[in-house]
């Protein structure tokens, strides 16, 4: 029986990383993710891992580039302004096909704004916020336990596809305290990282390795073949890695779509609506990219309508609209529905219920 502890989402990130065998953490202080770097500054050295506080997020993401190039499991965490600084690095990591994990604890934006929660980085996380057009797998936990478990999945998927993985949290998810079972999630075997830079440059085939953020004509790649390879990887991810959860959707006329903390809110709103006899359900994407398009499309074909609940001015709602292909109504509860018109406000179930009542 795995140990059970009481902890917050940010520390669950750290526990998940340790369980996944993360050997390297690079970080820079920024609220609301400081508990992650403080936790790992204590815990990594105890386990023979590397913890390093950098001089800025630009440095952090490039240290991650170096560590990933060396073939070890490595990660960083940040919040929205730091995420902005990391975009060139994210693009390079994706271009060089380096596996790594980046935890983004979203706070209020755009710009510096305030230090609390939001869901305003959906677009930059799922679309590839840096230059050039690339994709990163994006995982969105909704509980402390799931944060811990998805961290392990994140490292596995990164290694499996040689692609950066983003775990998208927020200030609320980072600070909510819940029980956590420190269990190891088992995944399948992974290929050897024989492409990585090695200790003293020693490789079985006697050849040295070169890692860079571009196609390599010396390996017989052309720019187009490189793009095609990348697209094939993305298509494989889209075909194999979509994850979502449904709640009371069997007979739902209105399907709420929400991730992260808003999924918790939406779930409560669904229960309140059901108590009034209103046929509401919830579809909660766990992977934001790849997005559960087909599941949503199937529901649209059955005549469901959709209500997106997200704490931004509307970002994921675009993906839902793409999924329904114009065949269903898509409504939105956004950041303007916060119970306080301030950075401390959040979208409450009662507000969502009002909207459900209006639509059903």
């Amino acid at each position, binding site marked *: 029986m795995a140990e059970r502890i009481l902890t917050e989402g940010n520390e669950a990130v750290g526990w998940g990383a340790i369980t996944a065998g993360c050997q390297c953490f690079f970080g820079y202080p920024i609220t609301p993710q400081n508990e992650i770097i403080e936790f790992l500054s204590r815990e990594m050295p105890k386990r023979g891992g590397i913890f390093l506080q950098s001089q800025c997020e630009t440095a952090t993401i490039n240290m991650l580039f170096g560590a990933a190039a060396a073939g070890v499991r490595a990660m960083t965490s940040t919040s929205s302004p730091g995420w902005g600084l990391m975009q060139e690095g994210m693009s390079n990591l994706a271009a060089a096909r380096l596996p790594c994990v980046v935890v983004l604890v979203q706070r209020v934006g755009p710009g510096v704004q305030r230090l609390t929660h939001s869901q305003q980085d959906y677009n930059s996380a799922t679309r590839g916020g840096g230059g050039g057009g690339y994709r990163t797998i994006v995982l969105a936990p909704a509980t402390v336990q799931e944060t811990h478990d998805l961290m392990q999945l994140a490292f596995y998927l990164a290694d499996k596809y040689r692609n950066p993985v983003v775990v998208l949290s927020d200030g609320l998810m980072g600070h909510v305290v819940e029980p956590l079972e420190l269990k190891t999630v088992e995944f399948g075997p992974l290929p050897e990282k024989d492409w990585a830079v*090695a*200790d003293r440059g020693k490789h079985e085939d006697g050849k040295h390795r070169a890692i860079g953020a571009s196609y390599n004509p010396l390996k017989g790649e052309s720019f187009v073949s490189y793009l095609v390879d990348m697209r094939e990887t993305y298509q494989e991810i889209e075909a194999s890695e979509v994850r979502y959860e449904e709640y009371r959707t069997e007979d739902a006329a209105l399907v709420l779509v929400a991730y992260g903390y808003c999924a918790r809110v939406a779930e409560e709103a669904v229960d309140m609506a059901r108590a009034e006899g209103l046929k509401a359900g919830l579809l909660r994407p766990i992977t934001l990219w790849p997005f559960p398009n087909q599941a949503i499309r199937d529901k649209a074909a059955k005549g469901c309508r959709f209500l997106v609940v997200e704490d931004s001015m509307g970002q994921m709602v675009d993906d839902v609209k793409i999924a329904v292909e114009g065949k269903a109504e898509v409504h939105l509860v956004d950041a303007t529905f916060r119970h306080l018109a301030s950075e401390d406000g959040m979208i409450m179930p009662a507000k969502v219920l009002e909207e459900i009542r209006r639509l059903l």
Partner: protein
Amino acid sequence: MSEEAREMVKERVSGRPEIFVREWFADYLWDLFCPGCQTPVVARMIAEALEELGIGDEAIMVGCVGCSGILIGGFDLDRVSPAHGRGPDVATAIKRIYPDNIVFTVQGDGDCIAIGASSFIGALSRSEKITIIMVNNTNFGTTGGQLGPTTIVGQVTTTSPQGRNPGEEGYPVHTAEMAATFKGVAYSARGALLTPADYRRTKGYIKTAFQRQLDNVGTGFVEVITACPTNWHLTPVQSLAWIRDNVIPEFPLGEFRNVTYID
């Protein structure tokens, strides 16, 4: 370039240390660098230094973006090409993962002390046990000869067409002297390549910087002044005279910090 001249250059390059130059690099040298460019000379010097220290093909190289970034292809080492200016960050991570390896960056002046200034200073301030070699040609070469952090006062570039004016553009950055002020830096020196004696001396600087890393003392930094005839609009021979008369008076050669332990 005539076939004859190509063969001659290739022959010279081929009398090289084993790790430099890889076959294709020798074939394409003249397509990669301008006539009179001294950047490939720096590569050869680094390769010889590694060989003479007996760390041949075991070192791990981190490149850069710019003319010096082209060099990375010539080395038969495990190597990583980072984003513009971020070599010291990448090298930091690799060195911490493989602490027994020699890890070094080769960067231009723009890469190292303009866009990469924060990465450079970050590495020095943490006393990373890496070696940073900065090729200083006083301008941004690859992009067409724009003003760089090391452009000499009065020097005409494509973005300082009237010559560098301190009132507008400030003064050249003295990177080797600055690096020497960091306690965590074990070695900092500046060399040039005007004569064979310069070559030997500068190679000695690079070897000492590597040695400080081997001995786990602290960061090593070597700045090498090189000619950029194309962007200076001078012949290779005029370029060397211009370095002697204008660059070295601004950037004196020598060692600025050399310690075998840091207390």
